[in-house]
């Protein structure tokens, strides 16, 4: 077995295990941590496919930022596992349909090569080929309008998130830093001259 194949199967086993544990772990924080592990190993698999930009971006964005905020929320929520399980049987048909659909889609993508639906082979590139540069060049030449459009949508998302959390004026007792900076010592205290009293 080639070393690369060994690495692939090693990462895949971890990935599948982590993916299964995400949905079977009872503790929501553990589930989120297994999701982190799944992202990390998936990035390893992408690295094997010579998609180093995607692999690093996955770790940077999903592991480094998204999952951190996710963990914040999961840790602070008071999650009652029994109440979540209450509606299990009523949700099962819908969940099963979605699950089957996803499995079918994955089957099409993975089985596509064998069924001859489409051609897909990973182009082998030399070691000094810069994936990042290639992605960047395409993004700012051929796909510049979709890219700019996506960034505007993200900006709207940011503004909306800020607007949603700041709907009413909050009673904030914070002091304006520009006022703080200009405070002089004599604004805060005054020195009194007290003549010494004579003892009788």
């Amino acid at each position, binding site marked *: 077995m080639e070393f690369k194949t060994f690495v692939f199967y090693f990462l895949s086993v971890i990935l599948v295990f982590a993916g299964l544990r995400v949905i079977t772990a009872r503790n929501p924080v553990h589930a989120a941590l297994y999701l982190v592990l799944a992202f990390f190993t998936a990035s390893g698999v992408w690295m094997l496919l010579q998609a180093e*930009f995607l692999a*690093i*971006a996955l770790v940077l964005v999903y592991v480094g930022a998204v999952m*951190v905020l996710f963990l914040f929320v999961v*840790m602070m929520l008071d999650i009652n596992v029994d109440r979540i399980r209450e509606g299990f049987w009523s949700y099962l048909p819908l969940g099963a349909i979605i699950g089957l659909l996803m499995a079918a889609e994955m089957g099409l993508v993975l089985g596509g090569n064998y069924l001859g639906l489409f051609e897909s082979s990973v182009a082998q590139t030399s070691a*000094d080929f810069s*994936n990042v540069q290639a992605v960047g060049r395409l993004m700012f030449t051929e796909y510049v309008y979709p890219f700019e459009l996506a960034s505007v949508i993200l900006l709207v998302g940011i503004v909306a998130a800020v607007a949603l959390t700041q709907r009413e004026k909050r009673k904030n007792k914070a002091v304006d830093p520009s006022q703080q900076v200009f405070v002089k010592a004599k604004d805060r205290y005054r020195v009194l001259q007290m003549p010494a009293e004579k003892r009788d």
Partner: protein
Amino acid sequence: MMVDALQGFLQGLFGSVFPLVWVVLKIVLIIAPLLLAVAYLTFWERKVIGWMQVRIGPNRVGPWGLIQPIADGLKLLLKEVVIPTGSDKSVFLLAPMFAFAPALAAWAVIPFNDTLVLANVNASLLYIMSITSIGVYGIILSGWASNSKYAFLGGMRSAAQMISYEVSMGLALVVVLMVSNSLNLGDIVGGQGRGYFADKGLGFLSWNWLPLLPMFVVYLVSIVAETNRAPFDLAEGESEIVGFHCEYSGMAFAVFFLAEYANMILVSTLTSILFLGGWLSPVGFLPDGILWLFLKISAVLFVFLWIRATFPRYRYDQIMRLGWKVFIPLCLIWLVVVGAWMMSPLNIWK
């Protein structure tokens, strides 16, 4: 010569698994001196702060107190690791590793000179940014797993601080990679060796710190905040506030401590490479070399200690204000300014 001989010997010894053995050997050659440097950085910190406060610092164990870090390490090893009741044991023990491992893994792509680098990858700067962003898990998880409200609040506080300053750090790096036209750390250093002043023999004026001075200052302050060091050390402001590792003891605590110092060395190395010309010599008549890199790292580390001994601790809302309302807008404006500069005829990074 000696390296070649060793390589040949090991090749005979291990046969087909030789490349793996060779890489492991190189990793050990990076990690072992790093851990030693971490130990002596704690010693150096206590000495420097001692001198700044007109004290002597550690001076009892060994000549000039030089064995002190070893003694500290042994003491921490022998102490009991107390695991609080009701804590999540596996996550509790996993958290220090999460904090420490990224600080070591990032060294894989750090170049020491033109050729001396473990993995010379094109996207090394991206790799470092993504690997170091994992370090925040150590803080969040330790806060949560301790099953203590104090540790949890401390973890939230430190994690929010680290995430905030990662943004301004990242934006400062974007400016650097814009002017270097590369994500490869070796190329970024190489780019700093060219320019008007470098041709005149005054290389230190061609390094990135001068043309990108605002970004250099932002980066320098951000790394202090990112490593949770004074004056941004709300994680363990021992005199007034409790932090994420208040339930940790013995070696589990020591690993957090080691992670902090390993991170300090890592970000100092990054500052030296990105802004201070890496292994390049400051003047034309002296040769470039790895010694310059070590000298620059030590200088940046000294600034860390100097800052710690000089400034009073920031208040938490002031830290957040500095990160979000001062540094990020400053970085964004400077990004546009440098972009316009590069497009103008005055571009100095051709």
